């Protein structure tokens, strides 16, 4: 597989985990400056560079909008028809789950929800290229990655319902998933905080001698946070095996990318920090797969970070608290709705002759049944026991906290009818 798009910062692969680049060992050449800050040559003509003169980074694509593989040599040969069917089913499962939970929020049955419409391809393509032991840090719109690893519909519904089945014990808002079993660190609302954490996690994998990497997802808006720049810098200087995966979907809530940055997207920042990089078509599940696969090989073999920018479009509203028609035209949404990762894969499958309308209808019916059953079950479960409110603040409960817990229970005993304690497990 020849992937020319992934820029290569060093020519010789460095296989040792702990080899470190030391600028002081770089020989000083004739006509070169010897300032410690950069290894550069002198020029004698004044040239204030224009960043807008740079050609935008190209976007790597294998499969076009019609579901046609435009570069057959690039197609990942190890991916079987069954793999593709599994991906397709999972993408549709998250899509139907999104529709149901979005409506459930509209009916007041859950408090909040965020759909992933249009970005399912970035989830599946990247998740499939990883090893289950690779550690995942996510923002909040990456549920397909977690489900690819085995997080069930039940797990999703339980978390959104904050019921007794929620692994997070009902403490966080809906869509804040996490699973130690699936090496997926629990999502938190503050944006970009997970980026420097991912660098630390990757350093830990290296310290522990693991041949694995970390993948860290974030949006184009998050990339403006201080933590994002810091993370790219830390991961490069500390030689961390981490893949930073940016979902550039055009919007951060109402803010279009023209108000978010003036450079060439997010990918152009990689070279500035010394990361390898590639921009990829996020609606092409095979292109995403290839990019993550080679990034994974590179980051583990050479212990240097990689940045992937997946270009896509946020088809749904930002969240259930947002009406996106207030800031963007529906014609724009309609245009992108014609070319989703799901529809593109469906066209591919149809072109290849192993998919038709009958199979499509049957699949949608099966998924609908499954999603509805898990939804009903989750709704029927009680909320977690009240004791979980005071646990896990610290490893052990401090005396001061024990006193507060006792105080709350005494209070509830005095006003038993004013609180919904009957909704909770004992």
């Amino acid at each position: 597989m020849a992937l020319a798009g992934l820029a290569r910062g060093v020519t010789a692969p460095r296989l040792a985990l702990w080899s470190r680049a030391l600028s002081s060992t770089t020989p000083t050449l004739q006509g070169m400056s010897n300032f410690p800050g950069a290894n550069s040559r002198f020029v004698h003509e004044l040239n204030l560079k224009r960043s807008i003169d740079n050609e935008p980074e190209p976007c790597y694509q294998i499969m076009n909008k019609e579901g046609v593989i435009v570069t057959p040599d690039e197609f990942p040969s190890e991916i079987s028809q069954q793999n593709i069917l599994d991906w397709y089913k999972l993408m549709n499962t998250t899509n139907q789950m999104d529709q149901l939970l979005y409506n459930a929020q509209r009916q007041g049955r859950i408090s909040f929800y965020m759909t992933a419409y249009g970005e399912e391809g970035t989830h599946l393509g990247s998740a499939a290229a990883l090893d289950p032991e690779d550690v995942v840090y996510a923002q909040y719109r990456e549920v397909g990655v977690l489900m690819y690893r085995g997080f069930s519909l039940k797990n999703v519904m339980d978390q959104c319902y904050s019921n007794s089945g929620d692994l997070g014990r009902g403490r966080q808002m809906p869509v804040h998933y996490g699973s130690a079993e699936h090496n997926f660190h629990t999502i938190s609302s503050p944006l970009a905080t997970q980026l420097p954490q991912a660098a630390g996690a990757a350093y830990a994998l290296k310290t522990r001698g693991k041949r694995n990497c970390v993948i860290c997802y974030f949006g184009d808006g998050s990339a403006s946070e201080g933590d994002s720049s810091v993370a790219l810098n830390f991961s490069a200087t500390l030689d961390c095996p981490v893949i930073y995966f940016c979902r550039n979907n055009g919007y951060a809530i109402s803010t279009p990318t023209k108000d978010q940055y003036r450079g060439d997207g997010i990918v152009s920042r990689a070279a500035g920090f010394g990361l390898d990089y590639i921009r990829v078509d996020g609606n092409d599940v095979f292109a995403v797969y290839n990019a993550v696969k080679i990034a994974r090989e590179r980051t583990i073999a050479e212990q240097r970070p990689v940045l992937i920018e997946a270009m896509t479009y946020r088809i749904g509203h930002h969240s259930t608290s947002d009406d996106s028609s207030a800031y963007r035209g529906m014609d724009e949404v309609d245009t992108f709705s014609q070319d989703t990762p799901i529809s593109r894969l469906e066209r591919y499958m149809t072109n290849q002759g192993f998919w038709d309308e009958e199979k499509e209808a049957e699949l949608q019916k099966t998924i609908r049944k499954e999603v509805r059953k898990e939804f009903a079950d989750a709704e029927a479960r009680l909320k977690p026991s009240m004791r979980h409110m005071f646990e896990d603040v610290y490893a052990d409960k401090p005396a001061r906290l024990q006193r507060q817990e006792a105080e709350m229970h005494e209070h509830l005993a005095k006003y038993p009818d004013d609180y919904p304690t009957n909704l909770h497990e004992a």
Partner: protein
Amino acid sequence: MDLALTRDANACIFGEDVAFGGVFRCSVGLREKHGAHRVFNTPLSEQGIAGFAIGLASNGCTAVAEIQFADYIFPAFDQIVNEAAKYRFRSGGQFDCGKLTFRAPYGCVGHGGLYHSQSPEAQFAHCPGIKVVIPRGPVQAKGLLLAAIEHPDPVLFLEPKFMYRAAVEDVPADYYTLPLDKAEVVQEGSDITLIGYGSQLQILKAAAKRAHAELGVSCEVIDLRTINPFDEETIAASVIKTGRCVVAHEAPLTAGMGAELSSTIQELCFLHLEAPVKRVCGWDTPFPLVYEPYYVPDTNRCFEAIKETINY
């Protein structure tokens, strides 16, 4: 830290300028002894140091992160308060970053001005999920730091930098720990309880000595040691016995730890109090350079507070 690195092969020490030994010489020789991959410099970013430390600690490594001055911990405030402190709780106990310790020099140093003098402990005491620990001298520093490093919760360990060179004690060479959930009665007394922590302890001890010499007052001096969550039992037992209390810290008065301590004492010891709980603190101003002698709660101010509380 040498013993911690020796004991735990997955322990790392990092921050700004720690590789050559640190700007306060706290990590001298550690890189040569334990390796460049375990004792290393980071880029100059506190939020990066904190986030990186959380990632290490939540993936099986022991992380001892240095913030060069406590004054510069605020860029890391989000990572510490929203992330480190809530990591275990929000994941339902699936993940935690308990193997994490932040070390930061804090407090006045004679000429530190606004940004080399601050005592930010109260900012973090208001945050459930992180423990805040401050030692009063070398023996305490070693025992409490080793306890903090092996403790299963993230700990912010503030070191009184005024004492880095000033304090000399015989410190046991072996590995030992001191409890993180206990205040210590460092001097028993019967007339009044004095509560403080860090370098304020030596000021309180000096004020207690003077009160005994000049007023014949017997002071009980308590080192809080762990600021959050603090040991209310030891404090309450003492104030119930003495009936009077002075709390002192360098940080500004308003919403400082003194407020939490005196409020708790009022709740737990109301019937035993013979006088209002007196707070002797920094004034509610930024920490000033040339005015430092008038700003800090020195021995005179502590002595005066004892006198006032005794004569109430």
